[in-house]
């Protein structure tokens, strides 16, 4: 059965914004699918609301719609494009859910669109817990005992029957959203209430606990001819009880004999056949009782998943690409294995290395959330490492994490060991190491963690080796000792610390003794066939397979694990850098350790090094590749931290030089530059102790913005309204030192914030976009919605911004990209921050303008000039690029995953992803962005307002607008009296502590459809937090700034007049030189 010829145009549904549980792995899968289908001559229509993705680049599809992933907008896309088929399996749970919704709404039938990849029946059988259990029982596979309930009462009944703990899983939610483990009745009630609410069908599955069982996952593929293969097996280091996305996982499975593995393989294939997935990939999860070997099937996903991305990277077998080909009729044996070129894709990859994945958490950004792990995913990113042995991979994965923690567990608290081992938490592995350092036995640690003794023994062995190293002096180091340590995964830093040497001196000594990293290939076949794909990882074996070429080559340093503030946007830039290098005739070499990304696809660059982004590992690659240049400005903060050390080690950095990048980060030096240029910045100072900080704050006046230096995403940043707050902050929230001071800035209240991305070739400066933030200054730029073109900034201010940007770019000798943040307060423009590198907004600006900024930046780094790219910029080499529509970028927050956390916006970034709304007017674009962000604004109903005194005047105007649009008004006493005084009808509502029904009751009862609740400043009151939390839980949009409220009014008004309409990026940018629409 070769490629189908009866379908021509295929709609691919993306996964939308990056959220916990659904991240850029679906950009990877979607991109692969787009590429594979187009390469095969299909026309691809794409819908995805996330502008930061590679897949939404106009080059990757014939028609790209950055539009909301809802039935209404998808139908409009289908109506316009009339695709023959819809591929449902590469867009995560969102894509699958939208496909089901379109089918159920009759849209697919109406327009005669065939669902390919997975059929509705298969999706339902896999996703509906009861149907799934029945199906498994039919083929003789056990599932944990369970019951589906839709009321708390029924759940408690089952709990009494089976006994606690019990696992709760709401139906049809992704990433285990709303699930959890109930150890008792109280927790059961708590989780069940939330779960029933979060499930779109109001159902929760309650399951017998298999806590502590061994957990496995198999990645399976099947074609229409019933050829089926296992791509990869994965064994979780963390046993059952921790969401697999939050678990340390290892590929392949380590502690199963062949018989047991084959039993699982048989079960996975039987499951796939029974569910009926016949053209694509799936993953099947199992649990095994370590004492008896009893095996239960936990779940299966009839689509490409996070684990498939991991499995693809772990084996070199591109699951999403193959899944797309199977969906259009190919058989597995008709597809070639890209890596060996001679053998078919119909085989099971075998690997001769060990892969370790470690999730990355950011509980520190969510005060109030307890840092414990359970069945609801909470990690925001992950790293993967490849090594020849588990120990080596584990060591590499740990140093890929960039947590700033060293491998020594010397800062841990002995009294905490039992607690930290028994209750899964992000620090558990470190505590396991610590326990071994303190002499705990494998049996003791196993008893507390249920982690398999094989893993524990390997971890303990590392600890013992480290302890032995600690006893050595530099002169004791021999070739054999160093080799053994490197083979066990110890970093140069760790060994250097053990023997009290400078890490670079140790590195030199190591090389002198002949212990050098070599590079092995990921080849799908354990070297049985020749590999034609340079997909490499380092090891300390004897023979290197790197085989570097002598072509001109540039190395790109990626951005490492996704985290809040450094995510897919940087991967987007890195991938584009790679594409551009190839286009300009250079070999591109990618270095990254994030398995979710497009950059770590072996197809993206000429050569891929799947390696940690540390000085040691990057230097090892530079040693062997000897690149002509290294690009550090695209991967966020991670490569910037390496820029100077690399340069000092003689590695050539291209583009803006590290010294100038550092200049922009150095308060004093940069202040001098600004003075010289005559550009104002808010008064500021640098403090290395508490008294100094208070002194500076007194001098510049409150409120002040306080933050540590060298951080991304506003980590630990606060606005202080008084000295007590500074003292508390310095004591609790931040570590500082002479080398790492605390930065204090005058906070500009009620200022409009602006983000600018610009290109500079050393002579000319071209501004990509001047983005106006919708939330006022004080809300982290990553958490603020912003709009292109700016809609409320005066011409003279825009002019000033343009002038300042040009001056700054030249002063910092920028070659490539630069981002500047400005604030406009009462007509005066201040510079807040300059980052001479690619910013988070680069993909958004590129999509809004239709001009590929990263590509041009790479050209500039290679010595080209802006005028060489006139063909891309509509002839512009200066000024600001025009945008033909309104484009609003809005953030997406993970608050629903962190119960107890206040969702008020502030200077610390907490959004995980972004969406873009496109419209002919600002209101339309903003409204669409809100729909895509999952917080659609109401079209009618009631608005609840509670604003602080500063905002009261603005609140009247907003309330009047809502009233005019037919909304009813509710407000707390203070706000209500102002509104009533202004002649607006308004119901007064109790605050939470005043009586009932109060504001929270109103939200729960769905009496209000929109909440406008601005902060009182200073610190957050419980009352406010309770209301905002209730809004998150009950999914009522909650706006915490007046500027946001004004935007909401415009969006609601637009919805009244504008029809549901969509535009593809290709048509928006069809005419290159278009004028900016008027606001």
């Amino acid at each position: 059965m070769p490629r189908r010829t009866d379908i021509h145009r295929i709609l691919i549904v993306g996964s939308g914004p990056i959220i916990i549980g659904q991240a850029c792995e679906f950009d990877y899968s979607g991109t692969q699918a787009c590429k594979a289908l187009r390469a095969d001559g299909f026309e691809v229509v794409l819908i995805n609301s996330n502008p930061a993705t590679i897949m939404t680049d106009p080059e990757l599809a014939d028609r790209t719609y950055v539009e909301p992933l809802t039935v209404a907008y998808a139908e409009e896309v289908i109506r316009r494009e009339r695709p023959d088929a819809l591929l449902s399996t590469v867009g995560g749970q969102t894509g699958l859910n939208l496909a089901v919704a379109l089918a159920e709404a009759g849209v697919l039938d109406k327009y005669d669109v065939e669902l390919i990849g997975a059929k509705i029946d298969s999706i339902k059988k896999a996703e509906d817990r009861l149907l799934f259990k029945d199906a498994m029982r039919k083929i003789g596979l056990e599932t944990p005992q369970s019951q589906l309930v839709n009321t708390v009462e029924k759940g408690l009944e089952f709990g009494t029957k089976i006994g606690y703990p019990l696992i709760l899983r709401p139906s049809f939610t992704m990433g285990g959203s709303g699930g959890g483990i109930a150890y008792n009745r109280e927790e059961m009630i708590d989780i069940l209430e939330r779960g029933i609410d979060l499930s779109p069908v109001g159902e929760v599955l309650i399951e017998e606990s298999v806590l502590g069982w061994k957990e496995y996952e198999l990645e399976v593929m099947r074609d229409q001819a019933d050829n089926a293969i296992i791509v990869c097996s994965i064994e979780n280091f963390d046993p059952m009880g921790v969401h697999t996305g939050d678990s340390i996982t290892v590929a392949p499975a380590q502690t199963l004999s062949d018989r047991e593995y084959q039993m699982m393989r048989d079960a996975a294939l039987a499951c796939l056949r029974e569910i009926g997935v016949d053209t694509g990939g799936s993953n099947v999860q199992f649990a095994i009782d370590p004492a008896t070997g009893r095996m239960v099937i936990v779940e299966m996903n009839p689509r490409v998943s996070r684990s498939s991305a991991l499995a693809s990277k772990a084996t070199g077998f591109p699951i999403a690409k193959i899944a797309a080909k199977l969906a259009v009729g190919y058989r597995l044996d008709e597809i070639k294995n890209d890596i060996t070129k001679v053998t078919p894709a119909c085989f099971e990859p075998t690997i001769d290395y060990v892969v370790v994945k470690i999730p990355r958490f950011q509980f520190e950004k969510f005060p109030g959330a307890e840092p414990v792990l359970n069945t609801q995913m909470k990690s925001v990113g992950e790293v993967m490492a490849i090594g020849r042995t588990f120990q080596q991979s584990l060591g590499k994965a740990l140093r890929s994490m960039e947590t700033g923690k060293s491998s020594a567990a010397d800062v841990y608290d002995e009294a905490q060991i039992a607690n930290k081992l028994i209750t899964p938490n992000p620090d558990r592995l470190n505590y396991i190491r610590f326990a071994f350092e303190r002499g705990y036995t494998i049996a003791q640690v196993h008893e507390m963690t249920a982690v398999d003794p094989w893993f524990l023994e390997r971890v303990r062995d590392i600890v013992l080796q480290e302890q032995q190293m600690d006893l050595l002096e530099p002169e004791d180091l021999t070739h054999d000792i160093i080799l053994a340590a490197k083979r066990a995964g110890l970093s140069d830093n760790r060994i250097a610390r053990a023997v009290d040497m400078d890490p670079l001196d140790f590195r030199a000594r190591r090389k002198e003794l002949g212990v050098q990293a070599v590079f092995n290939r990921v080849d799908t076949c354990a070297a049985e066939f020749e590999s034609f794909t340079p997909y490499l990882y380092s090891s300390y074996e004897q023979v290197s397979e790197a085989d570097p070429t002598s072509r001109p080559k540039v190395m790109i340093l990626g951005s490492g694990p996704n985290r809040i503030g450094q995510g897919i946007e940087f991967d987007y830039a890195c991938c584009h850098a790679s594409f551009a290098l190839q286009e300009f005739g250079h070999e591109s070499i990618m270095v990254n350790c994030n398995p979710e990304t497009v950059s770590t696809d072996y197809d993206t660059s000429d050569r891929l090094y799947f390696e940690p982004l540390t000085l040691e590992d990057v230097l090892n690659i530079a040693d062997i590749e000897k690149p002509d240049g290294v690009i550090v400005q695209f991967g966020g903060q991670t490569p910037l931290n390496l820029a100077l050390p690399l340069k000092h080690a003689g590695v050539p950095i291209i583009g803006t030089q590290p010294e100038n990048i550092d200049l922009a980060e150095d308060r004093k030096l940069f202040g001098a530059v600004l003075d010289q240029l005559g550009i104002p910045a808010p008064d500021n100072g640098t403090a290395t102790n508490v008294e100094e900080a208070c002194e500076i704050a007194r001098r510049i006046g409150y409120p002040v913005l306080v933050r540590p230096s060298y951080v991304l995403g506003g980590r630990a940043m606060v606005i202080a309204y008084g000295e007590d707050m500074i003292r508390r902050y310095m004591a609790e929230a931040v570590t500082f030192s002479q080398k790492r001071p605390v930065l204090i800035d005058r906070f500009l209240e009620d200022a409009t914030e602006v983000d600018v991305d610009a290109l500079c070739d050393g002579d000319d400066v071209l501004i990509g976009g001047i983005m106006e933030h919708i939330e006022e200054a004080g809300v982290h730029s990553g958490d603020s919605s912003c709009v292109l073109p700016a809609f409320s900034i005066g011409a003279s201010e825009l002019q000033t911004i343009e002038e300042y940007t040009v001056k700054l770019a030249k002063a910092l000798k920028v070659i490539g990209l630069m981002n500047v943040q400005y604030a406009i307060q009462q007509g005066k423009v201040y510079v807040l921050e300059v980052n001479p590198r690619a910013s988070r907004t680069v993909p958004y600006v590129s999509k809004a303008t239709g001009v590929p900024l990263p590509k041009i930046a790479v050209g500039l780094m290679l010595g080209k000039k802006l005028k060489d790219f006139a063909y891309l910029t509509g002839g512009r080499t200066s000024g600001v690029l025009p945008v033909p529509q309104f484009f609003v970028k809005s953030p997406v927050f993970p608050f629903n995953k962190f119960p107890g956390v206040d969702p008020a916006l502030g200077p610390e970034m907490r959004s995980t992803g972004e969406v873009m709304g496109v419209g002919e007017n600002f209101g339309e674009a903003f409204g669409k962005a809100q729909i895509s962000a999952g917080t659609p604004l109401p079209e009618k109903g009631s608005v609840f307002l509670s604003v602080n005194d500063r905002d009261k005047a603005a609140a009247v105007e907003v309330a009047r607008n809502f009233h005019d649009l037919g909304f009813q008004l509710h407000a707390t006493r203070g706000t209500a009296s102002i509104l009533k005084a202004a002649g607006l009808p308004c119901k007064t509502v109790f605050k939470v502590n005043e009586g009932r029904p109060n504001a929270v009751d109103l939200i729960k009862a769905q009496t209000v459809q929109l909440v406008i609740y601005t902060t009182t400043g200073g610190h957050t009151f419980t009352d406010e937090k309770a209301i905002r939390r209730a809004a998150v839980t009950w999914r009522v949009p909650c706006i915490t700034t007046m500027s946001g409220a004004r935007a909401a009014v415009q969006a609601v008004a637009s919805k009244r007049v504008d029809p549901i309409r969509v535009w593809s990026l290709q048509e928006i940018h069809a005419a290159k030189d278009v004028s900016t629409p008027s606001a």
Partner: protein
Amino acid sequence: MDQAILALEDGSVFEGRSFGALTHRHGEVVFNTSITGYQEIFTDPSYAGQIVVLTYPQIGNYGANQQDNESGRPFIEGLVVREFSPLASNWRSDEQAEHFLAKSDIPVIAGVDTRALVRHLRTRGVMRGVLAAGPSLDGKALVEEARQSPSMAGLELATRVSATAPYEWTAGVDACSPSQHLQPWPEKRFHVVAFDYGIKRNILRRLVHTGCRVTVVPAGTSADDVLALNPDGVFLSNGPGDPEPLEFQAAQVRKLIGKKPIFGICLGQQILGLALGGRTYKLKFGHRGGNHPVLNKITNRVEITSHNHGFTVDPDSLNASDVELTHINLNDETLEGFRHRNYPVFSVQYHPEAAPGPHDSLYLFDDFIKLMTEAKGGAR
């Protein structure tokens, strides 16, 4: 920890640490790419005369147990691994893999860059080697020793590993977990005589499991003696060494063709090929692993299969009017199975009994039952 050395006839020397027995062994150095199943590999008699390199770097993790033996003892001459686990972790494990090998006096070298070694064998072809463990080893002398050792080409090993007297095999497949629900054994309706050229127990278990009473006979048994046992079918087993010298065995099989349904696996296919007038040849580095795609040309489906062979039948040497090629390896297009056009005779080059490996081809045992059913029905 004692030192160990693997010396190859081409002069390559790999140093590592010794696990297992402190001894010298020589053999053909081959590699297997299976991730799981080391115990089955150790005990597969087809590995007689071979030093096995396992490409998966973590070996010994799940220990060893009584159930997973493919014969009475390990048959490999030596084992080459990247890392050998000091701890066994599995609910079925009885002992550490290291001990399991040491008590059979088999040397193990660990810490070797097995990937480099495999790439070497892939490009140069498999070759003779010596694995030595113990104090004061001399690499050069070991290379010389390797050069003096017998070559696998032309080496007849099947009769050396075969049973010396006939015996009945009665055990079927047993479950490895309470969740493995195997079909109950059917009534034993067929008597199968199995030639033991180095037979793996899982073949015997599978035969029993599909309803056979099995009599295992030595490799030197004559066709007449087999017929005297009045079997419903004859099975030709896997085994080690070069098939070419097995002229006697091929002659006996030739006499049985047309008289009894015949099913051959691995060396069994090669002997059947010789019996049908075909030729065999040695592959550069053989097929050893659990992931080879084989196309069944009759069903047009691909099976993921378990392999262990260094020799194969040349399909061009078979008479196309007698023989239908049924299975082809999709990696290198080599012959993986054929059947006789006129008689109930078929064979595969790979291992449908798995152990280790995937179970995609278990249907072949049912096919054998079908042939015997038809033959029985036809005869009576």
